[in-house]
């Protein structure tokens, strides 16, 4: 092969992992959650650990669960429990909000598949 051919081959080999990496980064899988309580600054939690986070809202405690790369609200001091009934969330750009308790959970990543979720 000529030197130019070798170069093209090297470039192609370089592009394969790079393209794969970019595809993964654009997959919209969340990397972290951001919990906002009232007017307090948001706090970021990674999702690699399985854990439950208890935060104190206007009405009382809300409990957020992170498991297997997904997040949900499992307990809330509001009556409606709509935030709990909305179930698991896994796409970056999505939110779980308990308005009465003023607790918001935002799913974030470096490269989001969606810039926002409409509902």
């Amino acid at each position, binding site marked *: 092969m000529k*030197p130019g051919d070798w170069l*093209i081959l090297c470039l192609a080999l370089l592009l394969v992992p790079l393209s794969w990496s970019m595809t993964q980064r654009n997959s919209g899988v969340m990397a972290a959650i951001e919990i906002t309580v009232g007017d307090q600054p948001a706090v970021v939690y990674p999702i690699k650990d399985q854990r439950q986070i208890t935060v104190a809202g206007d009405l009382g405690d809300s409990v957020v669960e992170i498991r297997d790369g997904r997040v949900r609200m499992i307990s809330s001091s509001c009556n409606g429990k709509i935030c709990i009934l909305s179930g698991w969330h896994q*796409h970056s750009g999505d939110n779980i909000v308990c308005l009465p308790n003023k607790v918001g959970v935002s799913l974030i990543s470096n490269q989001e598949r969606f810039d926002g979720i409409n509902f």
Partner: protein
Amino acid sequence: MSCCRWLPAVLLILTALLTACEKQNLHRYQSFAFGTLIEIKIRGDDKSLANQAAANLFVDFDRRHNDWHAWQPGKLTQTSALLATEEWFTADETVLALIKLSKQYSQLSSGLFNPVIGKLIQVWGFQGSEPLTPPSQEIIARLLDKLPNADDIDIDGNRLRGHNSQLQLDLGAIAKGYAVSTGIQKMRDLGIKHALINAGGDLCGIGNQGERPWRIGIRNPSGNGIIASIELEKDECVFTSGDYERYFTHEGKRYHHIIDPRTGYPADQVVSVTVLHKNGALADAASTALFIAGPDDWQPLAKKMGVSDVMMIDKQGRIIMTPSMQKRIKLEPGNKNKVIISKPLT
């Protein structure tokens, strides 16, 4: 040394790829305002301008939330009280424009978007934070007997007069859309070219995210992830009215917050309606009106209201959409819902 001839091209390609991987100048802000969680994304090099714009918007949203609140004492409740006197009065300028627009859209919607049925919404409990039980049939019948509509408001310049003592403004089906559209305009006036406002799941965007348009996922009403996605063209809003947003369950039956002014009960044929339009206020009001109109009657109403990009999910889980919406929306792979494309809105 022929490889040297390739070197600039290789470096150029690699540089372009690596640049594409870098995070854009995307600034993100989030706050509870306007009774919901609001997220603002601004793309641009001037971070201080973005900070200033977001801070201004949050203050503005909060002020409007107080001014337009349907039941907490403020400008709107004062206006409702004055309308109920059935005498002419000079309206506060902070509510006048929105009332004028609400009347216009209510007429376009044949009254299905009704901005003056605050008393009906109130008895259902959706003006408090936690509704628990449905009102009795007697209460609903009594309210329906003299139910006001937007035509009961006379408008003469900045003066208003009511014609129905039951008039009570509740602009919940338009206020957020109007506020978000106005917010977008304010950012544009500040020189911001690329921004996205997400107000509790309703969004308006200008410009783009960088190398691509703003990309919005539409949540599956069943609660199972995303059902579709859409890329916003320049200056567009996407609004959805859904029966899952606010509701309560009583004796095994679910009651949601979108009340049909013709029956006094929650509209029960549809799960969600998504409208794409440049005007957030219109998209907001239209999504409510088309939800109430239901699967059989929404098309003439959509045409009358001037919205052409509509997606409706009915109680059977069927996805009904206009041909123009079909061109814009991308259903998620593996969608099992039946898809029906309506006739063009001629």
